[in-house]
């Protein structure tokens, strides 16, 4: 394989503690190395910013609900199609881009790894077909467990070991990466048109509470020692006053310590915190509770989170929180899609327009930024838009601009239609912190990689790690004349390398690389009871056979990369 040396760039790498020093990054055989031969191809990065490839910890980019969004929103394609060009396949869509466009857009921004945040296990084939058709970036997918009948039945009786054995089986059957929980218990209740809005609302029939599900899944996750922690979208998302439910949920992690060989320190990752940080009793007195939330997160080292920044765009919301989407269509009266999945989960889809002229939308925008700016440890707070829920991932460069430039965000804040009310509803206007490039590398590279258990593989530039490298036309030594330069530079990287292959040159795709599918292969002690339970559920309640559920052939996951875990001694 080719050798490269990226010379004279300003390097930002939290893994090695490099804070913008002018230095070289060498690549050989797909890895970062300390030295290369004279014949290595030289990439001139003088005056440019060099970071590891970015890591997306939470986005909805592949699978049934994403595709339902594509199918039912032809309007999302308007003026967004790109023609076939060289090796680039045609692309379409803005908030729900086609698979090809998804891969290209991430790569062009310097992202080289991304996690699909909610895989309905029964639809894992669909998720993997789309992942296969998303070029360049490495991807993993999180199967959802928080409303799964096996999990609820085991945890009702406190059977953590059985839960763990079931998780291991399901990760293998679906080629899944982590334990995802969405509105625990509430989505099962939605099977009857109901919901669980607090962590103590019992789940109809199953006689278990969201709190018990969450704690049980943390315990099962740590029993297995999985690379990532339990990854949760708490109950009561999106409602005024929901921050209290969020704090209750965060409290459930109290006393738990991470147990794994990947260097991960958290036991709970809370996703799209923006949607869970609302105060007030109604939309009239809706306000930010980011300070309360971040005080808690900052003082609890066993938590990580991502922001879920609102980008003020028209977008498409989609979540396994079925009852929430039904609630949302009642608020905005836009078209509602829903799909309940037997024994496992549900999903809803509703378009949404985050208008800067609407007070609540502007406050949501403020909260997302506030969370990131109040984070004391950028290694535990990551930037996302919960794509496409709070905005399309293609807006990351704009979010970076707002975070890195007080001027840029105040310009936005002060020109909202209801600026006075918006400013009064959060502390954003009084924060003068500007995220540095080093902190940005923590929040988009090293941090999410560590949280995912990938700290030794990606998110950094230490010799031995995968050669995922992004070079941006951004000179940190020059005074920033205009904050727009941030958005421009991070929208289109000058050069991107994925596993040592140069995939982007001056913003164009030049190679589609060797895309991999990341999954977790967890070994557990033989567990005849769980195997019997699985067999019985398929015979009685599933609408497909166990043999057809488990078979996930090579054509779905052509280039797998398994992280192995051995819990047979646990």
């Amino acid at each position, binding site marked *: 394989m080719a050798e490269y040396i990226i010379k004279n760039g300003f390097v930002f790498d939290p893994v090695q503690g490099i804070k913008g020093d002018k230095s070289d990054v060498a690549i050989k055989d797909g890895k970062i190395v300390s030295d290369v031969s004279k014949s290595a191809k030289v990439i001139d990065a003088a005056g440019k910013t060099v970071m590891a490839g970015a890591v997306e910890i939470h986005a909805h980019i592949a699978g049934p609900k994403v595709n339902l969004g594509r199918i039912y929103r032809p309007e999302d394609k308007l003026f967004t199609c790109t*023609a076939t060009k060289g090796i680039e396949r045609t692309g379409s869509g803005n908030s729900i881009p086609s698979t090809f466009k998804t891969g290209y857009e991430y790569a062009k921004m310097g992202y080289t790894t991304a996690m699909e945040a909610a895989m309905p296990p029964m639809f894992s084939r669909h998720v993997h077909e789309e992942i296969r058709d998303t070029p360049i970036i490495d991807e993993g997918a999180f199967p959802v467990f928080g409303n799964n009948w096996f999990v609820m039945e085991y945890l009702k009786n406190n059977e953590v070991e059985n839960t763990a054995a079931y998780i291991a089986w399901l990760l293998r059957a679906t080629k899944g990466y982590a334990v995802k929980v969405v509105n625990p218990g509430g989505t099962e209740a939605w099977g009857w048109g109901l919901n669980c809005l607090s962590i103590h609302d019992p789940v109809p029939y199953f006689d278990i509470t969201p709190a018990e599900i969450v704690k049980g899944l943390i315990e099962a996750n740590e029993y297995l020692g999985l690379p990532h922690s339990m990854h949760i979208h708490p109950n009561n998302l999106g409602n005024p006053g929901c921050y209290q439910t969020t704090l209750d949920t965060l409290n459930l992690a109290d006393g738990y310590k991470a147990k794994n060989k990947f260097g991960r320190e958290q036991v709970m990752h809370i996703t799209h915190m923006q949607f869970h940080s609302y105060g007030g009793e109604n939309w009239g007195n809706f306000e930010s509770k980011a300070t309360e939330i971040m005080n808690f997160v900052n003082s609890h080292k066993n938590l990580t989170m991502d922001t879920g920044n609102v980008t003020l765009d028209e977008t498409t919301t989609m979540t396994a929180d079925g009852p929430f989407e039904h609630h949302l269509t009642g608020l905005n009266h836009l078209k509602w899609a829903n799909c309940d999945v037997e024994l496992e989960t549900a999903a809803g889809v509703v378009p949404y327009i985050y208008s800067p002229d609407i007070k609540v939308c502007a406050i949501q925008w403020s909260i997302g930024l506030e969370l990131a700016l109040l984070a004391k440890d950028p290694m535990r707070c990551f930037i996302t838009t919960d794509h496409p829920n709070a905005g399309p991932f293609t807006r990351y460069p704009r979010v970076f601009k707002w975070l890195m430039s007080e001027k840029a965000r105040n310009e936005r804040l002060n020109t909202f239609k209801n600026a006075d009310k918006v400013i009064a509803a959060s502390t954003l206007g009084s924060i003068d912190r500007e995220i540095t490039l080093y902190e940005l590398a923590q929040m988009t590279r090293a941090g999410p990689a560590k949280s995912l258990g990938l700290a030794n593989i990606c998110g950094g530039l230490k010799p031995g790690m995968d050669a995922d490298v992004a070079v941006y036309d951004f000179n940190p030594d020059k005074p920033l004349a205009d904050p727009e330069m941030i958005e421009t530079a991070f929208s289109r990287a000058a050069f991107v390398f994925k596993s040592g292959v140069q995939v982007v040159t001056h913003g164009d795709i030049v190679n589609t690389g060797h895309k991999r599918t990341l999954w977790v292969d967890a070994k557990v002690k033989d567990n005849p009871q769980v195997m019997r339970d699985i067999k019985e559920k398929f015979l009685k309640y599933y609408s497909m056979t166990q043999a057809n559920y488990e078979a996930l052939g090579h054509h779905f996951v052509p280039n797998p990369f398994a992280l192995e875990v051995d819990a047979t001694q646990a």
Partner: protein
Amino acid sequence: MTKTVTDVVCPFCGTLCDDLEVAVTDDGKQILDVYNACAIGAEKFLHSQAKDRITRPRFQQPDGTWKETSYDEAADYTAKMLAGAKKPLMYGWSSTNCEAQSMGHEIAEMCGACVDNTAAVCHGTTLIAVQDIGLPTCTLGEVKNRADTIIFWGCNPCHAHPRHMSRYSIFPRGFFTGKGHKSRKLVVVDPRVTDTAKMADIHLQVTQGQDYELLNAFRVAFKGEWLPDVVAGIPKEKIIEAANIMKAGRFGIIFFGMGVTQSLGKNHNIDEAIAVTKDLNEYTKFSIMPMRGHYNVTGSGEVLAWQFGYPYSVDLTRGFPRYNPGDTSSIDLLTRGEIDAAFVIGSDPGAHFPISAVKKIAQVNSVCIDPHITPTSGVSKLHVPVAFVGVETGGNAYRMDNVPIDCRKVVEPPEGMLTDEEFLTMVRDRVKKLKGVA
């Protein structure tokens, strides 16, 4: 000696039963019997065993006779035809696997083709309605485990989806439905007294073409507002009775078919049916699901959507995807005479399109990929027989509820026969060369 292949997936209708067992000879070359399938499903497997099956591509001669050719020459012809055409149509896709669809799309993109599937003549109207108003739906196992109210509207599963009722909708005992069909109320809406209607607790014999009116009357009845004495041929009392049954259940579902999608009102009927479903979610839990016909028409829509953004009638002639049913849909393209080459796979438009459209296929260069001799192969210049997907090769398919199931290979195809995917790969590689793509 024989062996039995289990968990076989039936590649016939959108029910996509995956519990078939097939007895085959020890050498894996011949099917002896098919278990668990309905009559039409079993026939599909047994038909593949016909001794007089066409096993090599063949060109139609000017006098209507056929001359055998090789797959190589067939791929040459197909590639040249598609690469040379200004606006080729690539139609069908509903009876092949997703892998073949995907390969076909790559060719279509390079050639600037129009890609369309059989939704164009069945549930395309459903898709338009979903684009208008959304779709509250669920998987078929949810119906089995929870549903106590079943509505079949304009469809006749007894004949079109024979195992639907026993596997999912009426008879099975699920988690919350331990009493099986005794725990379910069945409402059938159909102008005819079909075999499905005969099983109903309530049969609403709607006046032909007035489904929209009846759906609308339901929405009024849910709210308890004033109704005329008779709507769409149904007395008010009966409408109110049925409306109350729907509201009173704990989990209900509307299954609908071509009786509403292709009758007067078309997509507007489905709009209203979805609105009915949405309304019912104010009182209880309700879903709605199209009874998709071909076993993988759903998959074609899925693959088209994730690759191009639209579920059918995709026009790639400008180098990027466009979608405008009525303009970019097959029958319209054909009858307007805009197509200069026709490629058909996994469907039989010769039997289902209006004669004016079929004539246009006959007038241009055309290729038909189909294991069978069909009306379409009869009007095509080149017929390429292939292995049966789901019998002689595997590959992914999507059930009517969008659940993906990987089909199984049960027996070997006849010596030397290619699969859809293999043949399309040959065409793709040739088109690449013709177009000078690396």
